[in-house]
């Protein structure tokens, strides 16, 4: 136990980097996923086809395989930037496909009559989406989006496998190599992940209840 207490700073900095990677990945995935979702419900056929192919393709590749392809592939085509940001890019592109599906389900949960009423009042496609559909869809996607954020956070540990050693799992591996106490070190890491995941879940629940009142 002393081992953990002595190295609490290592876990702290690992958790901070993991949180950073997860947050950036989630924001990138949300923006890209929203764009993909808009493509899928847009009246323009090529956009719909592109989005379908993207989602279908990307979510069929294991994240670790995608990460490895990016880490080794980007330098091949002359794109070189830090390992951490390469991992964020790959994971952002990956989770965008899932975020798109969550959003699309949320949009489909908005009753058709709401959209018809907006159109009948003369609102265009963009206005209908922004002022009527998305605000209502947002309420139904809070919980699934929170599940996605938890998945993004936990799977950010895969970054360690492609060499981002600064994040929590990477730091834990280094400690384990040094002291050969896998149960203790990874037990502590697991506890840290659980704490974050529960906290995200609780926050989403609180947000959901708050919005439900004003419905």
């Amino acid at each position, binding site marked *: 136990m002393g081992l953990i207490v002595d190295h609490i700073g290592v876990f702290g900095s690992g958790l901070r980097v993991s949180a950073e990677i997860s947050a950036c990945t989630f924001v990138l995935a949300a923006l890209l996923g929203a764009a993909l979702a808009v493509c899928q419900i847009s*009246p323009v056929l090529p956009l719909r086809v592109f989005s379908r192919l993207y989602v279908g393709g990307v979510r069929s590749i294991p994240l670790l395989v995608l990460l490895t392809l990016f880490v080794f592939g980007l330098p091949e085509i002359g794109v070189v930037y830090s390992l951490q940001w390469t991992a964020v890019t790959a994971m952002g592109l990956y989770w965008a496909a899932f975020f798109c599906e969550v959003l699309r389900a949320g949009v489909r949960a908005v*009753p058709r*009559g*709401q959209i*018809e*009423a*907006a*159109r*009948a*009042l*003369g*609102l*265009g496609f963009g*206005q209908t989406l922004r*002022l*009527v559909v998305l*605000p*209502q869809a947002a*309420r139904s996607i809070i919980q699934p989006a929170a599940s996605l954020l938890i998945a993004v956070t936990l799977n950010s540990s895969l970054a360690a496998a492609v060499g981002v050693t600064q994040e929590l799992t990477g730091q834990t591996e280094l400690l384990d190599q040094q002291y050969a106490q896998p149960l203790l070190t990874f037990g502590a890491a697991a506890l840290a992940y659980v704490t974050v995941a529960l906290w995200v879940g609780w926050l989403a629940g609180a947000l959901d209840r708050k919005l439900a009142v*004003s*419905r």
Partner: protein
Amino acid sequence: MAGQAQPGTLPQEFRVSSSDALSETAAQAPSDQDPRTSLVRIRGLNKHFGGVQVLHDVDLDVHSGEVVAVIGPSGSGKSTLCRCINRLETITSGSIEVGGVPLPAEGRELSRLRAEAGMVFQSFNLFSHMTVLQNLVLAPVQVRGLSRAEAQKRGRRLLARVGLADKADAHPAQLSGGQQQRVAIARALAMEPSVLLCDEPTSALDPEMIQEVLDVLAELAAEGMTMIVVTHEMGFARKVADRVVFMDGGRILTSAPPTEFFADPGHARAADFLSKVLQH
């Protein structure tokens, strides 16, 4: 409600303008003596859902200030006709003009013209994430470019007119069905449309709430609003409408002033329908 007929006190005489091939009242061209032009002018409208044809070669003229009640059995195409007028449904062929301008198939111009035809739905369709007043303010600000203050003033005036001035800050879910439909009517009016399309406005309401909505519509009619009302309320058709259009099988079978229509439907199918709905 089938009881009293209101004899010839209708403000205007309206020409029958249905020219359906099956119609026994036969093709009459829109009146040349009528100085008013048609506000809504439908010619040769056909509509298919997949392989099923739901509207057959429909012609209809609605003049400014006229109230047309569209009646007929379920599945006769009356709701579809109503929804085609502002292109909530795409049409297979034919033409629809509102205010002398043909409706384009899609795009910004369509949005602008749609706003000319206010729509009241069977299921109200108030925006559930907004307050009553926000429902009324949204489109005038976004589509017509009114200032928020101006739109709110108009919204409150319209709420007062439908008897719901005190509900401005309520959410739709807090209102009864009848109240929601009155808000929906106010929301449509906030765009100052030239014609109001009502698609079975009372069909989703409890019997005791139907009257409050019909009263609002009757008031609008008395004020000269042009309306096309798809309805099962024969009392409303008889008392408020200037003309009754009877549809069956996707065709307009008869089109006549209510006194004439209810005295003699002029078509066997219409007579049969009336005998069924007027019995209870």
